[in-house]
């Protein structure tokens, strides 16, 4: 192939892309080769890590489920209804994405010290509890789930729903019978993205739910706790386990045809 200017341009762009991927591969390889598979397994078998793993899987699933329940109606509203102030509301929904994670945790902590927060805690205690872990994961994950569902509904034509209205549906029935079945791939993607986001959540959990071993410790907290006592091997083992889970989620999202 002759190296003309156009080809040279593609070659440079490809080199930039490959360099970035190689950098990431080197990071992962360096982490993976820091210790042996035997020591990974030994670490992952310890009661504390098994508890943290179990708690992570449960809280991430709950947070992602709640995020999806919120994301579907909000995403549908933001896509199908035109109203004054929509662009402001649209921007407000992205606030949890741009806020520093520690600030989210601090906001939660302060809120539950107010009168309203204390009344809520009489019914469901959140601060420094497992339910607090779920809430901290949910507040950030929901913003990502809403983004995904908004994109899903934007790609779906509103026409079938219009036709459903003329065939006898109420707006709720059109959403339930027509829009939701058509959006099921997007719903799976939104759940997976919210789940993955919850799995990596650390700052808000640390501030709002704490890092108590065998109580509110989730996998990112484990990495931090192990690092703080100089146990790098355990931190590496847990990190690699989280990388594996993240890759599985990425594969699941790609299988739905959606993009993260």
């Amino acid at each position: 192939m002759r190296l003309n200017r156009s080809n040279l341009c593609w070659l440079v762009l490809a080199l930039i892309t490959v360099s970035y991927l190689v950098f990431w591969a080197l990071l992962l390889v360096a982490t993976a080769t820091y210790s042996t598979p035997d020591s990974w397994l030994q670490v992952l078998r310890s009661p504390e890590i098994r508890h943290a793993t179990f708690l992570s899987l449960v809280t991430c699933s709950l947070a992602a489920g709640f995020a999806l329940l919120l994301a579907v109606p909000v995403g549908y509203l933001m896509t199908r209804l035109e109203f004054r102030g929509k662009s402001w509301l649209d921007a407000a929904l992205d606030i949890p994405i741009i806020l520093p994670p520690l600030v989210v945790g601090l906001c939660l902590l302060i809120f539950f010290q107010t009168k309203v927060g204390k009344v809520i805690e009489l019914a469901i205690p959140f601060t420094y509890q497992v339910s607090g872990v779920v809430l901290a994961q949910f507040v950030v994950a929901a913003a990502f789930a809403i983004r995904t569902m908004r994109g899903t509904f934007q790609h779906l034509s509103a026409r079938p729903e219009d036709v459903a209205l003329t065939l006898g549906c109420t707006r709720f029935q059109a959403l339930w019978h027509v829009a939701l079945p058509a959006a099921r791939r997007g719903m799976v993607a939104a759940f997976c993205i919210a789940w993955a986001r919850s799995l990596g959540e650390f700052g808000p959990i640390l501030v709002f739910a704490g890092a108590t071993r065998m109580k509110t410790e989730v996998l990112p907290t484990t990495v931090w706790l192990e690092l703080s006592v100089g146990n790098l091997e355990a931190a590496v083992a847990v990190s690699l386990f989280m990388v594996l889970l993240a890759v599985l989620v990425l594969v699941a999202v790609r299988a739905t045809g959606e993009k993260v």
Partner: protein
Amino acid sequence: MIQLDHITWNVSGRTILEGVTVAIPANTYAVLMGSTGCGKTTLLEILCGLRQPTSGRVSLDGVDVTDLEPRERGIGYVPQDLALFPGLRVREQIGFAPKLRGMAPEELNQRVNRLSEQFGIAHLLDRLPDMLSGGEKQRVALARALAARPKLLLLDEPLSALDESMRAEAVSLLQRVQQEHSLTVLHVTHSSSEAAALGTLHLRMVAGRLEVESKG
């Protein structure tokens, strides 16, 4: 009978429809022509209640339906893209409206079978929309609209996706359907030949106003 009384539609300070007034008698096959973007689809959407007019009234058989929801108007609507429901089989598409109204399964099956035979799509009942040709989709969309037993059928360029040979067949199908179901039809088209073959009342939209061209 459709009665449109001074229908106006403004959007972003622009007038799309201006004082549209027309009466279409019952059992008439009306065809509506006009240039692209002149407001034909908007008029259909106002008729079936998907949009509220800025001003003016819509009456069907002497009843003012302007403030009624689409589901309360008894209008069948076939949009240009046909808008079949993704993920629903042909059987479910046709049975959608009767099932929604709580029709018994046996009666529902009978209605779906009768309509599918009438439209020559009985062999397609278990297919999904992705597995249908343009002509098949058009028949399914028509059968789905008629399963709700509407008094009025609105068709927005329903034949635009069909090739020349299928179009002639579709024209005769529409004539047959209108007569057999005693429907009032308002059919939007760009094709003069389609309009000549089907229309008993010819309407034209010019600069947001509706003109009656001829009565067949």
